[in-house]
């Protein structure tokens, strides 16, 4: 069975900009089309935005076709991110955590050593 895609038009649709979306997207976000995103979703979207500066995320401050479409993109990115995280092996995740901890230790070491050195230098200088 082939999946059929229906193209719907949003109010204020501009053909030249290609503002359209398929039926699956519509079903996914029908509940949110006119409402603001839930607090939980906002939190998740902010998390995506924090880790992916290029993510185009709208938190529902404006109710336009553009905002709706950007939200679809954000949800898609969130979904892809979840799928990616699920695929990563436990070892990979542990390695990432350990590398992060090592980096943090190195940063602390450098900061402390630099301050100690400058203190002695200041103490000894004229």
């Amino acid at each position, binding site marked *: 069975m082939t999946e059929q895609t229906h193209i719907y038009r949003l109010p204020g649709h501009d053909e030249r900009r290609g503002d359209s979306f398929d039926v699956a997207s519509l079903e996914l976000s029908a509940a949110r089309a006119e409402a603001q995103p839930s607090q939980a979703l906002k939190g998740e979207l902010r998390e995506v935005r924090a880790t992916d500066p290029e993510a185009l995320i709208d938190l529902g401050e404006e109710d336009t076709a553009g905002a709706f479409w950007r939200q679809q993109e954000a949800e898609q990115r969130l979904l892809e991110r979840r799928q990616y995280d699920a695929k990563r092996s436990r070892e990979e995740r542990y390695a990432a955590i350990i590398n992060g901890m090592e*980096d943090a230790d190195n940063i602390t*070491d450098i*900061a402390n*050593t630099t301050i100690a*050195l400058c203190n*002695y*230098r*200041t103490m*000894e*200088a004229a």
Partner: protein
Amino acid sequence: MSDILTNALQLLVGDSLPKRPLKKLTERELIDLESAIGRELFGPIPTGHRREFFCLDAHTWIWYEEWAEAGQPKSSTTRYEVRPNGILKAQDGQNYKFIGGEELKNLNLAVRLYYEQTMREIYKRDPYTGKPLSHRPPVTI
């Protein structure tokens, strides 16, 4: 009288009285001394190159390299800024980026070696305790 007291005190505590032999040097001059150690930390300097590696202040490390290419003088300055959230690296005033992984580990190693050697050779202090180094020979039984 004071000579007797000084001698008596030296007999009691040896040469470990706090001294400040570098008192007359400015911070800039101390940085020059430190850089003489810093430039040697990364192995031999190629002929015709000049290298400086030093701690500029409590938040900044500088790596400066100067050489000639086809008779034209070239130079490169790498600046490492110590920030609470990471070490920011800028080459020739641009391409700012936070370093991590192997590069961060290597910088930490260089900083530690620099600290240990300058503490011993310039400030005459134990790098771990910060106490002045004693010139007395170790006690033997």
